[in-house]
């Protein structure tokens, strides 16, 4: 267990919840909800960038030297070879999607309740961010399980 893993997960999941909020607010947008969605999306962007830094710092300082060799030597090396490798690259999509969702909200904040297409576009983006963040959490679980199974195979 490492504090940076927890920090990365908490920042990422709260960032995802911010976009879940945006998703819900834009299902039936009005002036108050759009204004609130803009503020919440900005918070979401900041949290997802912080999750990027926290996860990246952990990956570079701890994971590669301590966790990766243990997983690779354990019974489920695919937890690293497939899931860490996938997660570390697909994660990079998320902050840019968050910037796009926030940017569209800011750009069209006065037009969203008149143009349903724009609201639907932002709803789709927000839903995608939420789904991807939860997919990251799922892959994180697989990677942690790979580490634990490697340790258990040595201790038990």
């Amino acid at each position, binding site marked *: 267990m490492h504090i940076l893993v927890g920090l990365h997960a908490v920042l990422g999941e709260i960032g995802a919840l911010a976009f879940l909020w945006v998703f819900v607010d834009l299902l039936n947008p009005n002036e108050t909800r759009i204004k609130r969605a803009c503020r919440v999306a900005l918070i979401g962007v900041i949290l997802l960038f912080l999750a990027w830094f926290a996860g990246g710092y952990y990956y570079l300082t701890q994971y590669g030297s301590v966790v990766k060799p243990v997983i690779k030597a354990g019974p489920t090396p695919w937890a690293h*070879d497939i899931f860490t490798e996938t997660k570390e690259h697909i994660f990079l999509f998320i902050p840019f999607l968050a910037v796009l969702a926030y940017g569209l909200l800011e750009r069209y904040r006065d037009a969203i309740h008149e143009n349903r297409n724009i609201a639907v576009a932002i709803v789709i983006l927000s839903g995608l961010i939420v789904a*991807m963040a939860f997919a990251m959490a799922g892959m994180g679980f697989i990677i942690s399980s790979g580490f634990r199974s490697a340790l258990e195979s040595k201790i038990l």
Partner: protein
Amino acid sequence: MKINSTALIRATTGTIWAIVAMTLASELSPSFKNFLVSTAGHHWIAKSVFSVLIFILIYLSFIKSKEPRNVLKSVAVVFASVILGGLVIFSFFVWQYFK
């Protein structure tokens, strides 16, 4: 200054595909991976920094573009890029593991 949504959508789509390309290239070409390591100390930091730079560069290149006539259609391209790009990366590492 107003945000240009065409530039933002193109920057996002371009960055997604740049990440996919850098991911595959760094695994298939040791010289490209070495180049990434030599620029930032670690291939993942280099990919992160380059993805931000690519995003900014594409955004600035299209900053004077007309706003899209159909935002939903443009966002659908981003959505398809994320799904397809994600599948390419995942499938690539599955293939690498089993090959």
